[in-house]
Structure formats: structure tokens, C-alpha cells
């Protein structure tokens, strides 16, 4: 159990935001609500008011953590965003207590400013979520994270859709999403109409991998360094053999995100972090096994295409001797 301690600035900011953002009671999805709250928090912090919003980075941008939120405010986040339903409507203005006039004014100002940037209330449109994920990504702490989630994955999604022969207009939609955020994409999002990966597609993905390896945060995410290098080579094999690229990238992104939320968060309770550490260890062990199986399968495909010369054979024998020596040392 957590000790409940009220955070009136946070409660006021959330309630005033809901009141102002959705006065007509339209459907307001949780994703956009979460992304905008984090944006509001960061802006207020920049202006010197820390409302201590508990949030973390995860698979799809930022997420407000419900357990830490309840711990900070005494109010369940579900009260504001009921499961499988719209964010609630708050027709009347919240009645704050224990909050100074200047804090209240600052919160109001920033909320009005933030909402004014979306005059048509675009955040209420259900197909607009990506735009708000992008809003978070402007603050992404790691270059690698941006490149992987906002460039490599959209590129692979795009190629997958191409191969599934979707309509031209849909292709352009995907192209737009990717191009706006792509770090390394260059001209790769120009729509083409072939299915499968041609040599150029493969080269461009390999170039993205070459760039990603430079950006991988070795110190910050050292727990995943070894897994990442293994994934990188496995993914290169998958590119060559055109094997479920999007799935392999998303699977790695999944385990990366498990560590991301532990490393990059604010105002999360200690108990919650411990819980996430357990989750990460469990998931890493599962993922390592899965990656090993994928790698073995892809190496079998590779083996079918390999031809050995005497020089390679000699080096392999040397490596086997080294390995045997290591086995006997133990």
C-alpha cells in the first residue's frame, strides 16, 4: 500500500485541462489525453511550476502511471479516464484548495495556450493519435529511441503495407507520418508499387541499422547492449532473407520499451520501479530465448547459401579450438 498524499496542483491541472479541452462532451481518447497532459507538465515545469505528474516513456511515447498518480493525489486515474470509455466530461470549473493564485493562473494560462495550438480540437479526432505521440517525441531523451520508433518502424510499416497492395491514398498517409518525423529516412518514403523488398529497400534499411548502431545508448541502456548487438546482426539476416521485418523490429522495441520506462520517468513511486524491474528481467529472459530461436532459424537459411573456402575453414577451426579451450578451462 502507498501512503496517500494529495497534490492539489496536479489535481487542479488535470481537472481544469479536462474542463477546457472538451466542453461539448465529445469522445476524448486516453492516448491523446495522456500525451497532452505530459506536454502540459513539461511546459509548466519550464515555467517554474512542478506539478509532479507521474509519467514514463514507454512503447508509444509517454504514459501517465495510474498507480503513482493515485499515490500522489489520492484519486484513481480511472476516475478521469474510465476503462474503454472517453475521458470524463467536467462541465463545471474545479474548485481548488491549497493552491496559490499565481499557481492557478499559470496552470490556466498554459492550458489555454496548449489548447489554442489545436483550434479545431484536433485532439478529439480518433485518427489523430500519432500527431500527439509526435508531440511527446519532441522531448524524447534518446536519439536512438526517436530513430527506431519514429523512423525505422514507420519505414517497415510502410514497406509492409506496400507489399500488401493497399490503396495509393493509404500509402501517402503512411508516407506523411513517416516523413514528418524521419531522422534518417531521406528519400526512402517515396511511394513505390512493387511488392517485397528490392535491393534498394534492403540497402536503405541496412543504412538505418548502421546509423542506429552509432546512436545506441551504450551507457544509459547497458543492460540491453549485448541483446541489441545480437538483434542487430539477426535483423540484418532477416533483411537479407526478407523475414518478418516489422515483427522483429517491434519485438526488440518491446523489450527496449520495458527498460525505457525504468530509466526515463518522473515522479514514479519506488515500489512501481521495482515492479517494472521485475517485469523487465522476466521479459528479457523470454525475449533472449525468442531471439535465439529466430537467429538459429535465419542462420539455417544463411547456411544454405554459404560456401566455405580453405581460409575460412582454417579460421573456423581456430575458433573451435579457442572454444574447446574455454570449455576445458571451466
Amino acid at each position: 500500500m502507498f501512503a496517500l498524499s494529495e497534490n492539489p496542483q496536479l489535481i487542479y491541472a488535470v481537472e481544469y485541462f479536462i474542463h477546457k479541452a472538451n466542453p461539448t462532451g465529445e469522445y476524448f481518447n486516453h492516448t491523446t489525453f495522456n500525451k497532452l497532459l505530459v506536454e502540459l507538465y513539461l511546459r509548466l515545469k519550464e515555467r517554474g511550476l512542478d506539478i509532479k505528474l507521474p509519467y514514463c516513456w514507454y512503447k508509444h511515447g509517454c504514459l501517465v502511471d495510474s498507480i503513482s498518480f493515485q499515490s500522489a493525489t489520492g484519486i484513481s486515474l480511472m476516475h478521469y479516464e474510465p476503462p474503454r470509455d472517453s475521458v470524463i466530461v467536467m462541465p463545471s470549473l474545479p474548485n481548488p484548495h491549497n493552491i496559490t493564485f499565481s499557481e492557478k493562473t499559470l496552470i490556466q494560462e498554459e492550458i489555454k495556450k496548449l489548447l489554442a495550438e489545436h483550434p479545431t480540437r484536433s485532439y478529439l479526432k480518433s485518427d489523430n493519435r500519432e500527431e500527439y505521440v509526435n508531440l511527446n517525441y519532441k522531448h524524447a531523451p534518446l536519439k536512438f529511441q526517436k530513430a527506431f520508433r519514429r523512423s525505422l518502424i514507420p519505414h517497415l510499416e510502410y514497406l509492409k503495407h506496400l507489399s500488401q497492395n493497399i490503396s495509393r491514398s493509404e500509402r501517402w498517409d503512411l508516407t506523411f507520418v513517416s516523413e514528418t518525423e524521419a531522422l534518417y529516412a531521406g528519400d526512402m518514403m517515396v511511394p513505390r508499387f512493387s511488392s517485397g523488398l528490392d535491393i534498394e529497400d534492403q540497402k536503405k534499411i541496412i543504412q538505418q541499422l548502421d546509423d542506429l548502431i552509432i546512436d545506441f545508448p551504450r551507457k544509459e541502456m547497458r543492460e540491453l547492449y549485448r541483446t541489441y548487438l545480437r538483434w542487430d546482426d539477426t535483423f540484418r539476416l532477416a533483411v537479407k532473407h526478407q523475414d518478418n521485418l516489422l515483427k522483429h523490429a517491434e519485438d526488440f522495441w518491446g523489450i527496449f520499451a520495458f527498460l525505457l520506462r525504468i530509466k526515463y520517468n518522473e515522479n514514479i513511486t519506488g515500489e512501481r520501479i521495482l515492479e517494472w524491474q521485475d517485469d523487465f528481467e522476466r521479459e528479457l529472459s523470454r525475449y533472449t530465448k525468442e531471439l535465439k530461436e529466430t537467429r538459429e532459424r535465419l542462420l539455417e537459411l544463411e547456411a544454405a547459401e554459404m560456401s566455405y573456402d580453405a581460409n575460412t575453414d582454417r579460421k573456423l577451426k581456430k575458433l573451435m579450438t579457442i572454444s574447446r579451450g574455454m570449455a576445458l578451462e571451466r
Partner: protein
Amino acid sequence: MAEASQRVINSPEEKHSSHTVYHECFGNTVKNGRFDEIQDEISDEFFRALDYLQREKDIEYLRLYAQSLKENSDNKKNCRICDIIEEINSENSGDIELIMQDLRSLAREYEIEYNKRKKDVMAHKGIDFHPSASNDHPLCSTLASHVANQADVHILIDAHEVGKKISSLVFITGDYDDIVKKKDAILPLLNISRIQGIFSF
């Protein structure tokens, strides 16, 4: 020792082992085996070398890195593939892209070869693996009074059980201190005809 173990493996005699030994080498559903760990360590060295070259585009950085590992060696982190990297470097006249290409190919070929050999063992090519004896085997405590290592006790008991089915079983081991030196005390307890040190095979 490597040559001696090869002599054993390549000998035309019938060879037997147990699942205890198999799991120690190749692991089981929850734990990696010793051989898998070694293969992972060697592969990691290749991947780290590729990572360095990709970032620095200069073989000198890799040399410095390898040197630092040697100097701070706790044996586990030693750069075991340094000579191979140097060889590949001179074969490609220092061209980083070609070096990386060759290193990557060799890393994959090594893993392919390892997986192939592992599969052969798993398919019991050349070695018959027998089920492990139970942990509460009546010989456990008697053997434990002679052999300190619990894993060795289990392997001896496994051999004892195989010896009930296979006559004239010779137990070959590289463990001189724990087993070979104590063979006079151990042998009368087991269904094994002889205990032999690997170097005399």
C-alpha cells in the same frame, strides 16, 4: 587437453554419456549450458568488434579496446579473437568495410558450425546419451564422502547405471584431482570396469 578430448570423441569405440553431462554442456529449458555460454561469449566478441568498427571506422580503436581488455583481463572479458581480427585486417589491407564484412561472415559461420555440431550431438550422432539417475540414488552419500563436487558424484552415478547395461565400461575423465586420484576408493563402489585419465587414452 583439447587433443586428448578429440582423441576420445574420434575413437571408434562405443561412446556413452548421460543427460546430466548433456545439460551441463547444452543447457535445458531454463538454463543455458556451458557450451552455449562459450559460443555466446565468442559471438559477443565479434559483435562488439563490429560495433567498434561501425562507430569509429578505424582498426586502431579496436586494437586499443582489445588491449584494454587484455590489461584488465579477468579472463572472461579477454579478447580471444584478436589474432583473427588482425589476420582479417591484413587480408583486407585495412579496408574497414571489407574487414567488417569478413568479420560478420565469420561470426555467422562460427555460429552455424556450432549449431551444426550441437545438432549432431542432439541427434546422438556418435554418442549415446542415457537418462540421469535420480538425485536420491543410494550411492550418493557414499560417493560424496570421496568426491567433493556434487556434479561429479551425479556423473559417476550415471556411469554406474549405464555400466549395469553395458559391460566393460571405461570411465574417461579429465578430472584428475577429484576422480582419477581417488579411483581405488571409488571403483569398487561402481559398475565400471576402469577409470582412466583422459591423457592416457
